């Protein structure tokens, strides 16, 4: 990717990107749509021999052979038995029955996590710069599990099983389904097996935002990643005939349009034409005009294709209320721009006010320095419907307008009519934020070889930040009045890898801790065995509560505890900072809640030492608050270290 390494504070030759850390061998496994192996992002010039521990291989298949792998791309396998048992044999006119990528998604995510450093990458001059994966020296192993109609759980489980046996260190999954109890969730089960073998698992949170409880991949042993904007945008200026202007976004690279007559798609075609769906627009009403289409129903670039096919000369793509002020930049096939919901309302009001409405679009190219991070409206939100005692998502990372590698045989819009061939494409999704974190985990693994997956996760979470580059709380693109995002949107905050490499303290979690967690969820022995492969008899004399899991954040639910309005949790911190250090606690109490700490300071005398504390949350009264939430934080401070945990309280 270009720019996101800099946005994350990674600097060539320094810190996590110094020569020593980059030389360390880490293998990142990508479960996705495969890879385009010939891409410059995956070449192996100057790369050392494949690590001896590696047991994986490159499998043959359609237009793919072991010779497509090298010292950078060290593994490539395809899993389709489950998919074909449901969808029938893979149609080889649209997909490769092999690890080769026909959709682009897997090539993009693999490059984001661990693609090579490539100079002069851009999308038709936009997002220009040196592209690099977050750990650009890591090895890549690809497991193709996603095909034209989706990704079968049975294939995914087989791929994770194989990847862990092959010897990957990090797994990156930019996919998911609906939240399920962990004992029936294939990703949760497979990930639990993976973390038991020391493999870090990062998953995308989903694109179901801003609806509440839309977050997926909720298991506490998974790093669940939300998506946010960096400070880079691709702005456009839309000017209405009456002079009013609005900012939009687009990856269209042509000249500004003239002032063109405006037409609302809803009045220029059949039923449903407002979404500019296939064949819905009438040529005689659209020809030569700037068409206003609503987001939803079909792909955004497809709307542009429909307008172009109907003879339109431009497109204003307006958000509905759900999309809020989200501004997607898309590689449209005609002059087009996205517009936020409030601009959309203004455009429609203007069109209703005159019979001669006009508009123009000017394309401003790549612009840096915008307020960021900004939580993407589409990014899925908590609270978790299956594990409300843990805040999900865990963190946010760059996931909007991300430039990374793309197969030259796949058009940037995925439209058949789009004949463009590019080496880099700009796309958005929690799919794009997840591999950023996977690559960062690989970097941390290089520096801290003995850290458990939970320790790496804790380091990334407790050092994440919740304010933007202007010192204001991170805002939410779903909000039309720039309201702040909450931990149910971004978890602990935006990742800060350099700080995560030296977090001071970590909240580690052992397998035993997770087993107690399952008991606290009242799982049966059989359900626990399904997830953990262990025979566990839960203690019946021990008051276990899910909130006692040694998690780096606090989700407090008063709903089930209304009798006392008081919840007490225990946490244990491990010193990984300086030998002798004393930490003092600083609490930002959630509105309506008192927070009591015992003790209020922790004095560590050696590295690896563990000290515990109790934290009690007291609600000042839940009456009238049912269904509401409030947020705060708990921070342990010592010198340069600040170990922060968000608190999310729900009544």
């Amino acid at each position, binding site marked *: 990717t270009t720019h996101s390494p800099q946005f994350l504070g990674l600097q060539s030759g320094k810190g996590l990107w110094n020569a020593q850390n980059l030389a360390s061998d880490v293998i990142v496994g990508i479960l996705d749509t495969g890879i385009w192996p010939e891409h410059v992002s995956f070449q192996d010039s100057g790369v050392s021999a494949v690590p001896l521990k590696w047991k994986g291989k490159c499998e043959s298949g359609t237009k793919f052979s072991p010779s497509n792998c090298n010292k950078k791309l060290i593994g490539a396998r395809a899993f389709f038995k489950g998919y074909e048992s449901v969808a029938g044999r893979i149609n080889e006119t649209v997909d490769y029955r092999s690890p080769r990528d026909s959709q682009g998604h897997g090539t993009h995510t693999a490059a984001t996590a661990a693609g090579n450093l490539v100079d002069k990458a851009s999308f038709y001059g936009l997002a220009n710069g040196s592209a690099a994966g977050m750990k650009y020296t890591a090895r890549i192993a690809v497991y193709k599990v996603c095909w034209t109609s989706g990704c079968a759980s049975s*294939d995914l*489980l087989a791929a994770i099983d194989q990847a862990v046996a092959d010897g990957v260190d990090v797994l990156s999954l*930019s996919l998911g389904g609906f939240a399920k109890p962990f004992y029936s969730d294939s990703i949760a089960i497979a990930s639990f097996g993976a973390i038991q073998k020391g493999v870090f698992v990062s998953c995308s949170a989903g694109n179901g935002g801003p609806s509440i409880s839309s977050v997926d991949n909720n298991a506490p042993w998974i790093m669940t990643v939300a998506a946010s904007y960096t400070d880079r945008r691709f702005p456009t200026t839309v000017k209405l005939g009456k002079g009013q202007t609005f900012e939009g976004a687009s990856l269209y690279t042509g000249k500004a349009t003239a002032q063109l007559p405006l037409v609302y798609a809803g009045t220029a075609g059949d039923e449903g034409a407002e979404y500019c769906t296939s064949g819905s627009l009438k040529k005689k009403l659209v020809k030569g005009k700037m068409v206003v289409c609503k987001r939803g129903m079909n792909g955004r670039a497809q709307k542009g294709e429909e307008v172009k096919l109907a003879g339109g000369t431009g497109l204003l793509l307006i958000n509905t209320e759900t999309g809020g002020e989200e501004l997607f930049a898309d590689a449209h096939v005609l002059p087009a721009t996205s517009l936020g919901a409030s601009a959309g309302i203004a455009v429609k009001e203007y069109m209703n006010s005159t019979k001669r409405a006009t508009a123009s679009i000017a394309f401003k190219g790549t612009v840096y320095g915008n307020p960021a991070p900004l939580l993407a409206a589409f990014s899925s939100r908590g609270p978790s419907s299956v594990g409300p005692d843990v805040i999900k998502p865990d963190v946010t990372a760059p996931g909007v307008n991300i430039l990374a590698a793309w197969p030259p045989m796949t058009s940037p819009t995925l439209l058949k009519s789009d004949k463009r061939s590019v080496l880099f494409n700009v796309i958005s999704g929690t799919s794009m934020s997840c591999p950023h974190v996977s690559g960062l985990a690989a970097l941390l693994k290089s520096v801290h070889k003995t850290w458990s997956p939970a320790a790496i996760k804790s380091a990334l979470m407790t050092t994440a930040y919740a304010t933007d580059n202007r010192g204001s709380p991170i805002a939410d693109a779903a909000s039309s009045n720039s309201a702040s995002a909450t931990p149910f949107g971004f978890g602990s905050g935006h990742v800060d890898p350099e700080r995560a490499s030296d977090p001071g303290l970590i909240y580690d979690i052992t397998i035993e801790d997770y087993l107690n967690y399952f008991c606290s969820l009242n799982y049966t022995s059989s359900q626990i065995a399904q997830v953990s492969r262990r025979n566990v008899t839960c203690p019946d004399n021990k008051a276990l509560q899910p909130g006692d899991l040694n998690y780096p954040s606090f989700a407090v639910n008063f709903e089930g505890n209304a009798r006392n309005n008081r919840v007490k949790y225990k946490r244990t911190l491990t010193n990984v900072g300086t030998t002798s250090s004393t930490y003092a606690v600083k609490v930002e109490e959630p509105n309506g809640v008192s927070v009591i700490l015992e003790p209020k300071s922790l004095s560590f005398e050696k590295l690896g030492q563990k000290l515990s504390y109790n934290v009690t949350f007291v609600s000042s009264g839940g009456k009238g608050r049912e269904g509401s939430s409030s947020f705060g934080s708990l921070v342990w401070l010592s010198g340069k270290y600040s170990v922060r945990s968000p608190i999310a309280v729900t009544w």
Partner: protein
Amino acid sequence: ASTDKQTYIIHMDKNKMPALYDSLGNSRQWYESVIDSITQFSSQEQEEEQETGFPQLLYTYETVTSGFAAKLSTKQVEALSRVDGFLSAIPDGMLTLH
């Protein structure tokens, strides 16, 4: 009849694996024998099984979980649930890219 069958992910308790298979070092043979066993019922049931086809073993899982994926009929899943070591049968589902 074949439309009656669907792919299930079967979770098994490896601790219940008979020593014979344990000594062979992998569980595939156990799962194959389990699948064989669920097709050996009454002659009427066998006839039905032959109509719907024998279970098709797609994958065995060894490293991160214990079990297998197979295309099974509802009746075969019912029979499987009576096998010692059976934990659960989860219908295969389709996930999507994010």
